């Protein structure tokens, strides 16, 4: 695959190294002269000097034939416009942008630049994973496919505690794909019983998340005797 990376800071440089090691053809574009000199030492003809948001610099880097363009400069406006132009003018199908300030994510979206990767957001996700709030963690969002994968912890005494998977009454468009218990995981059957402390992985249509947390985390709607029997 031919990949253009715009911005050869720490992120761009390491991406370039990794992709090159995996056998991809890479061009790194850097606008800071001293940084460019260092990058050129390592990447030789695969490094180009210039402002990657200028059309002629993109064209010189071969934007018309690239299969992926990654904009990872430290400047969100630059990343947005580089990706917008790459997609709309040059028809690059796969673009990835770095979003430095998560408050700018809405602008990336407005200009149709996705995915925009925000390191701050990623770290927040990790924190959420380590210290889950309401026992729910977003593992993966696939906005284009309108799907997400979440992890939810089953609380003791909640509706789901002690129920078979088929008896959870989950809404259409959601599916339990794995149960994590005592450090291992398994793919459940319809009659697998969910226990308190389990972590359930679910794939679901975007927007169902609240319904599901309410359902699984809600109070038991049967008397305890029925549960025991």
């Amino acid at each position, binding site marked *: 695959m031919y990949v253009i990376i715009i911005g050869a800071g720490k992120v761009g440089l390491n991406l370039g190294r990794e992709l090159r090691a995996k056998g991809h053809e890479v061009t790194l574009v850097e606008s800071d002269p001293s940084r460019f000199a260092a990058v050129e030492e390592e990447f030789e003809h695969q490094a180009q000097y210039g402002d990657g948001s200028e059309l002629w610099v993109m064209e010189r880097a071969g934007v018309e034939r690239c299969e992926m363009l990654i904009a990872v400069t430290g400047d969100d406006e630059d990343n947005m416009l580089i990706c917008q132009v790459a997609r709309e003018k040059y028809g690059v199908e796969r673009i990835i942008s770095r979003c430095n300030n998560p408050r*700018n994510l809405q602008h990336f979206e407005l200009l149709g630049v996705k995915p925009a990767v925000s390191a701050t957001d990623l770290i927040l996700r990790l924190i959420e994973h380590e210290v889950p709030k309401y026992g729910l963690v977003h593992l993966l969002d696939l906005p284009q496919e309108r799907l997400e994968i979440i992890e939810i912890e089953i609380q003791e005494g909640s509706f789901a505690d002690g129920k078979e998977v088929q008896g959870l009454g989950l809404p259409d468009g959601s599916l339990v794909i794995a149960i994590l218990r005592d450090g291992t995981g398994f793919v459940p059957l319809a009659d697998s019983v969910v226990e308190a402390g389990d972590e359930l992985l679910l794939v679901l249509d975007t927007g169902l998340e609240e319904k599901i947390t309410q359902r699984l985390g809600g109070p038991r709607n049967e008397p305890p005797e029925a549960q025991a029997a």
Partner: protein
Amino acid sequence: MIAKGHDVSVLDEDPEAIALLERGLDRPWEDHGGQFTVGTALEMDALLAAGIENADAFVAATDGDNTNLVIAQIAKRRFDIEKVVVRVLDPMRAQWYEDQGLSTVCPTQKAIEMLQAAVGEAVDSVEAA
């Protein structure tokens, strides 16, 4: 614009920039009905404080082409402002965004044209002599 009786709101990251606006004015900028907001253009809060929601026209003229092109598109797409004008120094991008429906003003292109005209006149007069 303010002299022509329009309500003008200026957003700038430099709090001292209002001094420039007031040069040549007999009274303070705000007494003329002007508004001045300190903030960066990409911050939604700053744009809202400057009154973007009620604007009939929007001019993006910071010293950064990319900033201008982004905020102009925000003004157009998110706030549905009909008249949006963008200053773009780079002639190639100015042309492309113009083709995409933004009103761009490219000082570089204007300067090229003026210089060409001036050189042309000089050459003509040499040839005529």
